[in-house]
C-alpha cells in the first residue's frame, strides 16, 4: 500500500483520514471474514443463539451444559464478521467536466475521482472490498469489488483514464450496477445529479430495499453555486445540447442562486427521506478534510 502513487491519491493528505473507517450502517455481507458485523453465523466471539444439533455440526460447538440440563444436544451459534463490500459509482457524463471559467479548481470529475480514490484506499486499507463503476448513459467500466492493492491500482487507473463526456442516465447505470452485484454493501455515488429523474430515486429505493447503505456525494463547482464572475456570459448547454443563454451573471445571480439551492435541497431531501447520506462535495474544498468531516458526521 505504501508503494501507491497516483495523481488522485495523495497519501500525505490521507493522513487526515488515518483514524477514519467506513462503517456500514447495516450488516456487512463480504466474502471474507472481516471486522464488520454480518448476518452470517460464524466463529466470532459474540454469542448469537442456540440451535439443535444436526449431523455435520462441529461437535466442539455442542453446549454440554445445556445437554446436561435438557438431555438434548444444542450447538452454540456465534455471529460471523465479514468484510465490507463498497461499490463506488462515479458519474463521468459531460456535465462532470465543468471546472469553472478560469479553472480555479479541479473539474467535478477530477474531484469525484479524488474522493473515490481516497475512499477506495480507505476501504482496501481496512481489508474490505471495493468496486468501481464509471457511468454516463451506461456503465463504461465496472470493476467488481475486491480487497487487494492490485485491485485498488486498477480502480485508480480506471479513474485516471476516465474522460467526461456524453449524456447522463444515472438511473440506468444504477440499475446495471444492481444487476451485477450479488451481495449488499455500501453504494457510494459521485455525481452532480443534474439529470435526476423519478427513475433515479426508484433505483435508489431498490438499493435501499436490498439494505444497501447509500451515500451520495453531490459534486458541485463554486461557479455552479454562484455563477461565474463575468460581466456577460453566453451560457451553453452541456451534454450535447446546443441551447445558449446570454446574461449578465451579476444581474441574474440572485435568482439563479435561489434556484440552484432549491435543487440541492431537493436532492438532499430525497436522500433524507430514503435514509441515505448526502454530502455536498464542493470542488473548492480540500477532499480529505471533507471526507473526514463526512465520516464524522455520518457516525454522529
Amino acid at each position, binding site marked *: 500500500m505504501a508503494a501507491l502513487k497516483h495523481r488522485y491519491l495523495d497519501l500525505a493528505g490521507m493522513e487526515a483520514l488515518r483514524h477514519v473507517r467506513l462503517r456500514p450502517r447495516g450488516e456487512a455481507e463480504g466474502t471474507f471474514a472481516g471486522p464488520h458485523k454480518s448476518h452470517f453465523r460464524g466463529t466470532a466471539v459474540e454469542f448469537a443463539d442456540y440451535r439443535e444439533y444436526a449431523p455435520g455440526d462441529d461437535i466442539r460447538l455442542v453446549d454440554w451444559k445445556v445437554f446436561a440440563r435438557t438431555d438434548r444436544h444444542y450447538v452454540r451459534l456465534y455471529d460471523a464478521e465479514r468484510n465490507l463490500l463498497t461499490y463506488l459509482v462515479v458519474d463521468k457524463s459531460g*456535465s462532470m467536466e465543468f471546472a469553472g471559467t478560469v479553472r480555479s479548481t479541479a473539474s467535478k470529475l477530477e474531484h469525484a475521482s479524488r474522493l473515490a480514490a481516497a475512499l477506495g484506499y480507505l476501504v482496501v486499507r481496512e481489508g474490505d472490498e471495493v468496486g468501481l463503476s464509471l457511468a454516463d448513459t451506461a456503465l463504461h467500466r465496472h470493476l467488481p469489488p475486491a480487497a487487494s492493492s492490485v485491485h485498488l491500482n486498477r480502480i485508480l487507473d480506471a479513474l485516471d483514464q476516465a474522460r467526461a463526456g456524453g449524456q447522463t442516465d444515472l438511473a440506468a447505470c444504477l440499475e446495471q450496477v444492481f444487476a451485477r452485484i450479488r451481495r449488499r454493501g455500501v453504494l457510494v455515488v459521485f455525481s452532480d445529479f443534474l439529470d435526476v429523474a423519478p427513475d433515479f430515486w426508484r433505483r435508489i429505493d431498490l438499493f435501499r430495499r436490498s439494505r444497501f447503505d447509500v451515500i451520495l456525494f453531490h459534486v458541485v463547482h463554486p461557479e455552479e453555486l454562484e455563477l461565474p464572475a463575468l460581466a456577460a456570459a*453566453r451560457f451553453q448547454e452541456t451534454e450535447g445540447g446546443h441551447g445558449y*443563454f*446570454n*446574461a449578465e451573471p451579476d444581474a*441574474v445571480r440572485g435568482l*439563479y442562486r435561489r434556484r440552484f439551492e432549491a435543487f440541492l435541497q431537493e436532492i438532499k431531501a430525497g436522500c433524507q427521506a430514503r435514509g441515505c447520506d448526502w454530502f455536498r462535495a464542493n470542488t473548492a474544498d480540500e477532499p480529505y478534510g471533507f471526507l473526514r468531516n463526512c465520516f464524522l458526521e455520518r457516525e454522529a
Partner: protein
Amino acid sequence: MNWPAFANPWLLAGLAAVGLPVLIHYLTRARPRRVAFPPFKFLLEACAGQQAVNRLRTILLLTVRCLAVLALVLLFARPFARPSGAAANAAASQRVVLMVDASLSMRAVQRGVPLFARAKAEAADVLRGLESGAEAGVILVGATPRTLLPALSRNLPALHEALVKTEPTYEAGDFQAALALAKRLLGGTGTLYVFSDFQKSNWEAAGELPAGVLCRLRPATTEPVNNMALVSARLLPEEPVAGETAEVICTVFNCGPQPREETVRLQLGEFTQERQVKVPAYATADCAFNVTFSQDGLFTGKTWLEPDDLREDDTRYLAVRVHKALQILFLSDADEGDTRSAAFFVSRALVPSAQAAPGLKLVRRHSQDTDRGILETADLFILVAPAALTGEAVEIMTRRVQEGARFLAVLDGPTAPGLVPAGLSPPFQLQRTVLSEAGDALIPGPRKLFAEADAGDWSAARFRRHYQTQALPGRSGDVVLSYPDGSAAVTLSSVGKGAAVFANLPLTPDGGDFIGSPMFPATLHELLRALRRSSEAQAVTPGAAWVLETPTPGEGALSVTDPEGAAIPTQAITSGRASRLAMPPARLPGIYSVKQGAAVVGAAAVNVDPRESDTRPIPLEQIKAGSGAAVTVVQGEEDLMLAGKARPLWPQLAAAAAALLALEMILLAVWRRAAPVVGGAPEVRTSASRL
C-alpha cells in the same frame, strides 16, 4: 393645426442622434464569454420569468433616453408655435409697425447705455429680421408722434437707415396719439412692436392697443430707473418789481424707493445760492430761495441738482422780467377829496405815500375818464364803487386780465353790479341788497389768504354789507372770506393768465370798523400779493407750439435763438410796444432769447415736462388691448423676431428633456434597488446582445 417651425432648422440634422442611445447600448455592452454551464436549465428556469420584464425595462429605458436626446435636439433647434387665428393672419401679413419711445425718459442711462439706444437697436434688429416684401413703418413717440416714412414701406433699408439716425427727444410721449397713428398705419392687421420704458405717467392715458393686431411690448429696461428731478421752479411773484423780495420755489421729486437729501443750486442773474432738501420716497419737496432784484430788467438763470441717470430733468431754467414798478389803475367815481369814501381808504391803505410803497405806481381815474393807453399799460386794475365803467373799458380790462393783468373790485355801494364783468368769471352771483345793521362777522373760506395760519384774524371786524351773494357751483374753492349766511365776502380766482379779486366788503366808516383795523391794509396788501401769485403758470415744454411775449422797445425785426444759439423761425401775432410771437415746438429745454438788433429784449424758459421725471413703469397687464389684439410681453433676451412670429417652445422642451433624464435616473435607481436584474435581460437562442 399649425406645425411648429424652427429657428435653427439645420440643427434638426441632429435628429440622427436620436438612435445614439441604442447604438451606444449595443456598442458598449459587454461581450459575452462562452461558458458551457452544466446547471443551464436552472439558469433558464430562474431567469425565464424575468426575461420579458427585463426586455420591457430595457426598451423603456432606451425609449426614455432616445426621447431625451430628441428633446435636446429639438431644444437646440429652437422650435416655436406658429400663432393661430387673427394673430397668425397678422403675422402672416408682414405688416409691421415699430413704435419707439423717444420721450425724455428714454434718455435715462442704465449701465452706460441710454434706454433709447437699446430700444433703437432692438427695433433695428426687428427691422433687419423682416422678410423681404414686408411692409414696415417706424413711429417715433414724442409730444407729437411722427413716422420716419409717411406710410408703411417695403424699402426696409431706407427705414433702417432713418431709424439708426434718430435721437431721443426732450418731449413727453403722447402714446394715445402714437397708438392712433399705429392703428391707422396697420389698418387692423399686422404686428405692432412697442419699445418703451412704459412710464405709468404716459401710458395711463394711452388708451387701448390697436384691435386685431399682434402687439409685442418690449420694455426698454426691467430695472427701475432711480431718478431725482427738479419738476418745478417758480418765481413768486412771477414778475417782481425792482427792490421787491421774490421767492424762487423749487420742487424736487424723488422717484426712488429711498428717501434722499439733495442739494438744489440756483443761479439767477447775479444770485447764486444753494439749499439742502430732504425728499421722501416717491414724493416731492419744496425749497425756496429769496432773491431781491435791485433793478428792473431781464434776468435768466437756472436751478439744478447733481446729475443722475436721467440728467435732463435735473435742471430747470428761469427767465424773469423785473419791472421798475407795478402800475395800478385805480378807478372810482368818488372825489379824491372825499375822505369818507371807500376809494380814499383803499388808496391810502395801498399807497400811503410814494416812499411808503416803493414799486407801486398808482394812477387814479374816474371810471369815465379812462383812455386806451392807460388801460393797456396797467398791471393792476382796482375798481372801487361808486364807479360806472364804459363798455370799452370793461372789454379792454377783461382782455388784459386774460393776458396776465390783475383785477380787484370792491363792491361797495349801488354801482357794484357794474364792477363784476362777466368776462372775468366771478365765482358768485350777486343776489340782492341786504341790510345788516348789527354788522356781520367774517369767516375764513376754503382759500387761504395768509401763508401763516394765524396771520389773518377778522373775528373783531363787523360789516354792514350791501349784497348777498351765492357761490356758483364748483367755485366755492375761490372763496377767501365769507359771511355767516354763506355769502362770499372776498373771492380770488384765476382768469386766463391773470387773476381777479372781488371784495363784497363795505370799506367806509359807515360800513363797519374794519377800515380802522390794522387788518385792513394788511388784508389789502396780501390780496395784492395773492393776485400776483395766482396767475396760471404757462409752462412751456419741448415739443409743444407756444407763444413768446416780449416788449419791443424799439423798431426793428425780432429774432429768436434757441439755447444753442440757433435761430428759430417765428411769426408775429401782435406787435406794438409788446409783441407776441408764435413759436414752433421747442426742441430743447433752456432759455430762448429774443433780440431786436443786437439787444436782448425778451427771453423765455422752456423746461422739460415733469411727467417724464416719474420713471415708474406701468404694470404691462394694465395696458388695455383692443378686441382681437394678441398682446405679448417680450422680456429678457428673448429673440424679438421669434417672439414676434410665434410662441417659443424651448421652455417646454427643456422641461421635457430634464424630466426624461430624471425619469431615466429614477428608473435605473429603482430597478437596481428593487430587482437583481437590471439591464441584463437574458436572451435565449438568439444572437442579439443584452438589452
